[in-house]
């Protein structure tokens, strides 16, 4: 093990020892329960571990942990709300049309990946893209629903595609 990595681990241990319970109680206030808070705090430290080069020069460790922690918290809530929407939609579906139990997890994972991919798009743009791709609506129909011009719809579509294609593969 190289010296640099050993040093990082040393710093991480210190960081963990000094700030873990503080971070966990911060997360717990936002999540309302200990278990999710403990999970997210672990994830936060794992993220920090994955970028050891920062640790050496960490001057405000709590501010840094909070930045990472908040990002994870937002993702956590997005996943939760997607899961809820998914379960609700499944429950509302006629039995015959609902996916089989083994398809359900795969489908949820696909939807989560798509949700993450589309994250950050303006709501109108996202909606136009979904209507076009999922429901097969034409630009004229989308324009009518969104009360914008067809030209704008085309611009939205290009924006959405560009956003998705910029993800590093």
């Amino acid at each position, binding site marked *: 093990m190289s010296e640099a990595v050993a040093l990082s681990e040393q710093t991480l241990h210190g960081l963990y020892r000094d700030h873990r319970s503080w971070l966990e109680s911060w997360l717990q206030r936002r999540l309302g329960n200990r278990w999710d808070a403990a999970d997210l705090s672990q994830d936060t430290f794992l993220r920090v571990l994955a970028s050891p080069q920062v640790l050496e020069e960490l001057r405000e460790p709590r501010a840094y942990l909070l930045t990472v922690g908040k990002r994870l918290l937002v993702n956590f809530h997005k996943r939760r709300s997607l899961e809820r929407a998914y379960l*609700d939609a499944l429950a*509302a579906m006629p039995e015959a049309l609902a996916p089989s139990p083994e398809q359900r997890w795969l489908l949820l994972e696909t*939807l989560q990946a798509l949700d993450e991919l589309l994250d950050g798009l303006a709501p109108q743009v996202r909606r136009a893209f979904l209507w076009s*791709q*999922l429901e*097969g609506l034409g630009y004229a129909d989308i324009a009518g629903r969104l009360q914008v011009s067809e030209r704008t719809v*085309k611009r939205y*579509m290009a924006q959405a595609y560009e956003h*998705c294609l910029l993800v590093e593969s």
Partner: protein
Amino acid sequence: MIRASNPEARQLARTAASWLALLDSGRASAEDLQRLEHWRAADPRHEQIWQRAEGLRQRLRTVPPTLAMACLDRPATSRRTLLKRGLALALLVPGGWLLSQQLPLAVWRADLRTAVGERRGVRLADGSVLQLNTATAVDLDLEQHRLTLVEGEIALSVSRAQPLTVDFGLGQVTVGQAQVCLRRDADRCRICVLQGTVQVRPAQGMALALQYGDQLTLYTDGSGAMGRFDPRAPDWRDGMLSVDNQPLGQFLREISRYRPGVLHWEPGLESLRVTGTFQLDDTDRILALLTASLPVTVQSRTRYWTTLVARKQSA
């Protein structure tokens, strides 16, 4: 998720994206398609990003549309509120509802009423939240834990274990730690469960429990119909009316509820179809939108007397 930020990658993605947007428009000419072929063949990186785009489109085609729409187009409000601690009340009441400003905070007994086109919300003394849709009248007696829907439509959210009983003429519904939407029309009543479980006791027939997503309609002749609805679709509580392939006549009758004055239409228009999501606050605008998508014109004699007629074929 990491997104490429170098100018070259951006430019490449932008070019591919504008091709894709053109293709999806259905208006690409044979010449356009030929130019696209050229572009793809000109550089392996072009072809590579094109393949990625194809992969994305493929993935979007494999998910069941209804399910995927419900998940990926879920209401933004719930995502936003979830970030703010998932406070139940905030979730139930959209931002535009200024509860405490409209009535004293603690309402125990009251006769509440809304005018045509008006909507308002009230926070009750027991912490429950009551929203009144257009042209609605409610009598409230919290000491008796009772509420009577005289006419119109309400949404009621009870967060306490102590239930509230709502009388709606054709029966009663008991709501405890649940949220319901109730609508009383001349010949029928409709109960929709937005959260939790409620007990319904029809004036005629057996008592029954309704769950989240259930919708029960009771008619004055004693009959009833059970169904399901989509609790996540935007509705009057969001100031919206969302319809999918609805007959125009039915749609206009719904719009009339929110519109002072008289709204007429030619019988021939009854079965035209309407799809879309409309803002209830401006029914004039809704009618204007209809003329843009359907072969109809609006004739207004006065602000309160409006008729829709079939558009004459011109030229």
